[in-house]
């Protein structure tokens, strides 16, 4: 089995779905029951439950269309592509589209609606294609599937349970002693009031909060933080990073750990990295960077090292003379021990342990003290 890059999955176990329109090939109630049956296939092996909406935005919007239909993947007439679906997420993510140039049938005389729906909903829940020819998630439609005794393959079950685990045991059934999920640094709780961060950066309008092996990502479209392994996006990056910042003019995020730094552009780690931080102009006495932020307007990047900071000229690509300077001299009120820095709404946010200070760079003063994880709407 395979999941999608970054392993997107639903952050909740109860999902809504809506059948937006219908094919004329079948009575509506046949389509309704095929979709319900397809959802029950996945419900039976996960903690997920589904309820139907008849209007408004559901997590999984199901529609029939021909040719171009508003996304970047037009259908291709009869045969070849039968349907497609998007991995979990907000908006069009999670949706499933069926090519109405196919002959949709309840049996196998045409393209069986239940079988394709069960496959596409596997995508809507986060499974990509399987190489196992017996698996439901194998990409090629298998007209010889035994519909009367349909069962998910072991590969399908292993795949979906790698995302959501097995069904929760209902209270009346005997509960087996379950392993408590590993506590401790493995899975930091995002609303822990003592939560601190290793590094924070923007990335194409999103904000990334790094912690140990993981990072949270938030953006306007996805107010609820998504939690990912760093390695699931950038396998070459280390865990426990020290600093990170985005140079928007280069569409690049630079990530620092120890005396090395990496460059990433979207999902792609850039070739030629890691490089040594001393190539930026730091003296050999500097062993690591604590935090960094880049000012897109001024084209300057600020590196915070212990209680001092350096300024780097992004245009000349060199460290500016007259540095390092004492952080406290130019950012009065800011704790000299800086874990991370973020710029937003014209303010600078200095993170130190579980606290962050909002700093007004024009008034040159701290304006607010907040919890470090205040960005997660806990």
């Amino acid at each position, binding site marked *: 089995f395979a999941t*999608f*890059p970054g392993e997107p999955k639903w952050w909740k176990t109860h999902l809504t779905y809506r059948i937006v329109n219908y094919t004329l090939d079948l009575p509506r109630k046949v389509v309704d029951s095929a979709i319900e049956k397809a959802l029950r296939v996945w419900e039976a092996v996960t903690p997920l439950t589904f309820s139907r909406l008849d209007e408004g935005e559901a997590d999984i919007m199901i529609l029939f269309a021909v040719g171009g239909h508003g996304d970047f*993947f037009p*259908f291709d007439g009869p*045969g*070849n*592509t*039968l*349907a*497609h*679906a998007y*991995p979990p997420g907000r908006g069009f993510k999670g949706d499933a589209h069926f*090519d109405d140039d*196919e002959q949709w049938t309840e049996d196998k005389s045409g*393209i069986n609606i239940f079988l*394709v729906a069960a*496959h*596409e909903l596997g*995508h809507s829940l986060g499974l*990509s*294609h399987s*190489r196992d*020819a017996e698996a439901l998630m194998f*990409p*090629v*439609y298998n007209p010889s599937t035994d519909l009367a005794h349909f069962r998910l393959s072991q590969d399908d079950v292993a795949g979906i349970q790698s995302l959501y685990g097995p069904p929760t045991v209902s209270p009346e059934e005997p509960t087996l002693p379950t392993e408590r999920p590993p506590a401790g640094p493995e899975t930091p709780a995002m609303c822990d009031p003592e939560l601190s961060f290793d590094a924070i950066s923007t990335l194409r309008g999103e904000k990334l909060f790094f912690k140990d092996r993981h990072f949270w990502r938030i953006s306007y479209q996805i107010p609820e933080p998504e939690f990912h392994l760093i390695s699931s996006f950038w396998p070459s990056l280390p865990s426990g990073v020290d600093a990170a910042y985005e140079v928007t003019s280069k569409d690049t995020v630079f990530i620092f750990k120890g005396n090395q730094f990496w460059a990433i552009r979207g999902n792609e780690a850039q070739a030629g990295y890691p490089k040594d931080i001393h190539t930026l102009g730091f003296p050999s006495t500097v062993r690591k960077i604590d935090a960094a932020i880049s000012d897109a307007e001024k084209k300057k990047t600020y590196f915070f090292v212990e209680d001092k900071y350096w300024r780097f000229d992004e245009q000349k690509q060199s460290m500016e003379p007259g540095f390092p300077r004492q952080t406290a001299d130019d950012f009065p009120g800011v704790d000299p021990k800086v874990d991370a820095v973020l710029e937003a709404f014209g303010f600078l946010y200095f993170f130190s342990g579980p606290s962050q200070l909002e700093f007004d760079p024009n008034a040159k003063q701290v304006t607010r003290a907040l919890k470090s994880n205040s960005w997660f709407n806990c």
Partner: protein
Amino acid sequence: YPLDRAAKEEDASMDLAQQYLENYYNLAKDVKQFARRRDSGPVVKKIQEMQKFLGLEVTGKLDSNTLEVMAKPRCGVPDVGQ
């Protein structure tokens, strides 16, 4: 001169293969000028990738088995390179 039938058929299977590899195996669309030759590097590599993923004999060629699978109805989600 009009293309003889074999050439036309060959062209049709090349189109099918090109479309298939672009849609599902991330064959870069700008490889077109090479793709007209079945033995161009990127295309052979993608044919092998597709044959491996779908459990076919990995020949790197558009043999009849491979063309047969390419003609089968399937899901529109790519197999690689989402």
